[in-house]
Every structure is written in C-alpha cells, then in structure tokens.
C-alpha cells in the first residue's frame, strides 16, 4: 500500500480488500469488551480541517483514539488559517510538531495531494475530502457497508449493481466511489440531470442515465447525494421541486426497489429534497450504519498506514 491515501485510485483491488477485511476485524474487537487497542500509542494524528465537517472529523478522531493515538484537532476557525496563513506554513508547523499522520479536509481540490507531494510533511497524508475532487475514506466505508449487506462481508463487489444519484458534478463522494467500485468490480450507474454530470463523464468507468425510474428496479445499492438548493441559481436545475420530482428518492420510488436493496446517503441529508423522510428512515436505509462503519474503516486506514511492522509485512 502507498504511504498516503489521497485518491481511491491509489488502491488496487488487494489494497482495498485488505482495508475492508481489516475494518471487519477491528469492528469485532471494538464491539467486544476491549474498546481500545494500543496499536498507535505514542503516535500523533492531526485532523487538519479547513472546512467545517463535524461528522468526518469526529469519525477520524474516534478511529484514532480507539487505536490509542494522540489526536490534535487543527481547524481553520480559531487558528491562524483564518488570518491567511498559507497551506505550506501550516504544514511546516505540523511537521515541527511531529505529526505521524495528517488527515486533511480542504475546500480546494488537490490540497491533500499537494501536502503529500510537497515534502513539507514527512508523515502520511489522508485525504478527508478535497474540494470537488475526492473523499476516499467515504468510498471505503460505502464499499464496506455494501459488502456487509450484499456480499457477506467477504471479497470484492464483483457484479454488484450500484446507482449513484444527484450532484455528481460537485461531488467528491461520487468521484471516489466510481473509482473504488470499479476497482472492486461493481457495476456503477450515475443518475443526474445532464447539467450535473461532469463534462467528460462518458470516459469514467461507469454507466450514465438521466432516468432514475428505469434504473431503480435493478439497483442493489442506491446512493443518494446531497444536492445544494443554491445550485438552481446557476441554472443547474430550474427549481428544487423539479429536481426532487425527477431525481429525488420519494416513498413511491423507494417501493420500486427490490426488497434486498439498500439505500445509502453520505450525509448530511436534505430531507424532502433528494430523499424523503420515509426513504431515509425506511427498512432499506443503512444511512446510520454507514456512520458506524465509518469509524471501523478509518481505524483500518490508520492502522495500515501507521501500523509500523504490520504495514511492512502486508505492504504490496
């Protein structure tokens, strides 16, 4: 495995399965009487968050703490970043503090990549979401969730039919998911109005559709993406209601899914816009489970990237 996790494309199929298998093992351990493992004792993990994202930050924080790492939270608010310190100077500061891993969330696409490539930081860089680029740990927790429900927590996702619906253009979750799911052998269909599909999407390793109703019956995992209402101001769609009618998961559409299908959402949800309350809270919904799985998967990522001898042993 590489030293950093910047993109889902950094992982080959063996890497990805190793992370998912490790996450399963760690989940079992933490579900037992011992809540905390000593693996990363004495290691320092920095949460470097330039963007508000409480859920991702606390998920990584919980993961690091369960592995006994020291966690430093560095957020743009209340730090010198808001006074205009450069990414470079912040990175050099963290390096001076001896960070073994930096988990970075940034509004600029490529920020994590730059941190890793610059030589400013010696430790591992984990991309916790960069602009509209990628969010690889989210894709891993999504794959973990799909595998649990659809493949008995084993192996890859060969042949699993996944449908991702919504603002693909601005979604780092969609980009990472398409890459990782292709690596794991799943069959992905993206559904969105054409205005919210990226230019060049036809070269991505997935199918494209503008018709949600046609795709739903054969879908095994349905992932709804958050859609921001402000998008209609840039003519991406005429109104929230029109979007919702065409691409929202309402109760009627949810009932068109097969009984075994699962409904996912990376959160936070706009209930009533891209997903109805009934669908979000329904029997097929695994949305709350995704959050719990997020901690296990992020433990596995930290464990494998920082685990010292263990990494040497399994590195590919």
């Amino acid at each position: 495995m590489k030293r950093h996790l910047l993109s889902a494309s950094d992982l080959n199929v063996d890497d990805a399965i190793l992370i998912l298998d490790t996450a399963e093992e760690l989940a079992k351990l933490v579900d037992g009487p011992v809540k905390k493992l000593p693996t990363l004792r004495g290691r320092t993990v920095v949460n470097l968050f330039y963007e508000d994202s409480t859920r991702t930050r606390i998920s990584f924080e919980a993961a690091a703490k369960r592995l006994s790492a020291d966690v430093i939270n560095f957020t743009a608010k209340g730090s010198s970043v808001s006074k205009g310190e450069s990414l470079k100077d912040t990175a050099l500061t963290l390096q001076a503090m001896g960070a073994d891993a930096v988990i970075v969330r940034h509004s600029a696409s490529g920020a994590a990549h730059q941190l890793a490539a610059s030589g400013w930081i010696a430790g591992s860089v984990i991309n916790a979401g960069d602009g509209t680029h990628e969010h690889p740990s989210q894709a891993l927790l999504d794959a973990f969730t799909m595998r649990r429900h659809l493949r008995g927590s084993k192996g890859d996702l060969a042949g699993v039919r996944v449908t991702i619906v919504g603002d693909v253009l601005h979604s780092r979750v969609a980009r990472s998911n398409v890459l990782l799911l292709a690596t794991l052998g799943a069959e992905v269909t993206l559904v969105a109005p054409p205005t919210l599909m990226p230019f060049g999407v036809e070269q991505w390793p997935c199918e494209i559709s503008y018709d949600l109703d046609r795709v739903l019956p054969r879908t095994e995992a349905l992932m709804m993406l958050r859609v921001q209402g402000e998008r209609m101001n840039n003519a991406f769609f005429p109104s929230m209601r029109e979007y919702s009618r065409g691409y929202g998961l309402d109760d009627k559409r949810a009932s068109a899914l097969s009984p075994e299908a699962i409904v996912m959402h990376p959160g936070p949800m706009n209930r009533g816009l891209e997903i109805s309350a009934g669908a979000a809270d329904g029997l097929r919904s695994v949305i709350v489970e995704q959050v719990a799985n997020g901690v296990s998967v992020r433990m596995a990522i930290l464990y494998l990237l920082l685990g010292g001898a263990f990494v040497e042993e399994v590195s590919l």
Partner: protein
Amino acid sequence: MSGYLLRAVSVLGEDKVDVLIDGGIISEVSKKPLAPTGVRTIDCDGLVALPGLVDLHTHLREPGREDSETVESGSAAAALGGFVAIHAMANTNPVADTAGVVEQVYRLGREAGWCDVRPVGAVTVGLHGTQLAELAAMAHSAARVRVFSDDGKCVADPILMRRALEYVKAFDGVIAQHAQEPRLTEDAQMNEGFVSSQLGLRGWPAVAEESIISRDVLLAEHVGSRLHVCHVSTAGSVEIVRWAKSRGVMVTAEVTPHHLLLTDELARSYDPRYKVNPPLRRDEDVQALRQGLADGTIDAVATDHAPHPVEDKECEWSSAAFGMIGLQSALSVVQTTMVETGLMTWAEVSDRMSTRPARIGSLRDHGRPIAVGEPAHVVLLDPRGKSAFTLEANASKSRNSPFLGMELHGHVEATFLRGRATVLDGKLVG
C-alpha cells in the same frame, strides 16, 4: 572595436557565410571569408543566425509588481532568449491606459537597454471593459503604441470591441484580443475535459475561446479592421482563424511555446506551475496548434511570459495565479516542437518569431532579413545538444517556469541589438 565578424555562420540554417556587423547595421554578407580589421571575430561554426526575435506578448509587471518582475529584469531575460523587441502588456498597476504610463514603460525599457520595449496600451480604462481608454493619445505618445489589449481580460462587450477595432484604424493600430467568454469561464481552473472531470477542478471549455474568436473575426470583417488573437490554445480556434483568413479577414494569431508542448495531463500533479490562462489543453489541440503554426494559419509564437512571486504559486491550485515565465525557453521549445519534428525550417521559425510579429506590431526597424544594409538585430543559436532550463540561468525575478529540469534542444549563444551585443557566450553583456 565596435563591430563583430560572425565567421562561418549558418543564416537561417542554410549555407555558411561570413557576416560583418558594423555601425549598427549588417555591413557585409559574404560566401568568401572576410578579413576586416578592428572587429571582434566570433567563430560561428555550427551556429545558426536568425533575425532578432520579436515577442508580441510579455508581462513585465512594472509599474506595480516589481517584486515579480521589472522592465529591467524582464528585458534582460528577453535578451538571453534571443529577443530584440518585446511588447509589454498593459495589465500593470496602474494599468497602461494613458500616455503617461506607456511612456514610463517605454523610458524604462530604453534605460535598461536589453531590447526594445514596446508598450501595449489597454483597450479600456483600467481593463474594466466598459469605456475606451485614450487610444490615440497612447498612439501619438513617445511610446508610439500600435498594439492595444486588455490581455488578462477579454473585451467581452461586443459593441465596445467593434468600436475599438474601428477606432484604431486611424493610426494603423491593432486590437489584440484575449479571447475568453467571461460567463463560460467563471472560476475556471483548467481545460474542461476528462482530466478536469477527474481532478474536480472547474473547467475552462474550448468553446469559451472559440466563441469569442468567431465573433471577433466576423466583427473585424464587418468593419474592415485588423484583429490579432492572443494565445490561441484549441484545435477549434485554429480552424476558425484558418476559415477567417480564407475569407480575407485581416486576422493574425499567436501561440505560446507552452501550448505547443504541454498538455492538461500535467494538472494531475496539482502543481500550480502548470496553471496558465488559457489553460493547457489536450494533445489533439497541441498537434493542431503545431500544424497551424507550420502552415502559417498561426502567424507568431508569443511567449505570454507571466512572472509571479513564489507565494502565488506555492499554494492550493485554485488559489494560485495563472501564468508561466517563458522568454528564455521560447526558442528551445520551438526548436524542440517544430524544427526537430521536421514541421518547420529555421527560415519559417524566423518568419514566425521575428518577421511576422514585427509586422503585426508595426515595428519597421525589426523583423528584417540578415542582409546588407539592414539593422543588425541578430540572434545566434547553437542547435546542437539538449539541456534543461535551470534557475541558475534564469534572469527573471520569478521562477514559475514549467520547463525547469526539462531537456530541450538548442540554446541561445548571442544576441545583437542594433549591432551591440546584449548577450555573448550565453551570458548578458553588462
């Protein structure tokens, strides 16, 4: 001892001759060895002589951003690149939109003495795109401005563009358009295509350039004016310019060295050295630009030398400034992409980097052949071997070059401005 004998030099890459430079002009060209007295002899065996290069598109940053470049440092870099005349773009601070500012830049260029610095005047006041600047005042100033451009910004308002094209006819001026439809490129970061879709960087679509060029060639045809298109970057733009020329429209176009060599794949590094406007495009575009330059559809290579301080490039891609420096690497990039590939001869390089840019800029003293009686503007280059552009050789105050460490063919040995050597042995003559 003021003169130079260029012994056994290959003018335009052809048969070896002796060239005598004296009194600021080319005083003799002979197939037989010359033996003048009182001049310095330069053994030019293996060297190629071209007319001194003319750049239509240089950002010198003075006045206003002397931390990234000055007229002095930028024109020194130009001399090292084989240039004898450069056009200083108007987007300084204050903007070069009055006779006072263009005369200041002109005077600074003369004081530096590395090459002729021709100021470009802004088309609109403050580059705001709303009101014409005093174009005639700049044309009739000591700087004798003939090229007008809001470069960095597009003259997007069609009526303003029409009026500007018409107005400069009175003094044989030309409008050099930065073709970028502003609404189609809001917050654009890189070429819109497969790579941008993967990188999650906002796209700068080819149509934003091509739609403005289409409009402008039709406007130029309608009012019978001269139009120059800055830094064409797409295959479609080449097609539109070719079509317009076939109709007799008075349009000329330039391409940058970096658009002849680099593609948007480089953005995958998220290294802001590769962030430039217009953006690096696809390989298909690079090939079409090379063909367009070779067949003459594109008239000139222009550097778009755009210095930026380190802090504006050592940051997140989306926060970084657009632009690359390019004066010192231009000729090597052209040799690598056009000559070594067999697409162009040295005579054609001379046409695209000296003759035609001088004509577009209405520089009567430049772009002249290496012939008896002509002004002695000459560049000597050694086309043999490859080397990388290095920071040690860099004379610009900025270092944002995409060519650092990249092996390119050839290097400039000497540059003569009106018979005076500004560069000898690849070094500035102070």
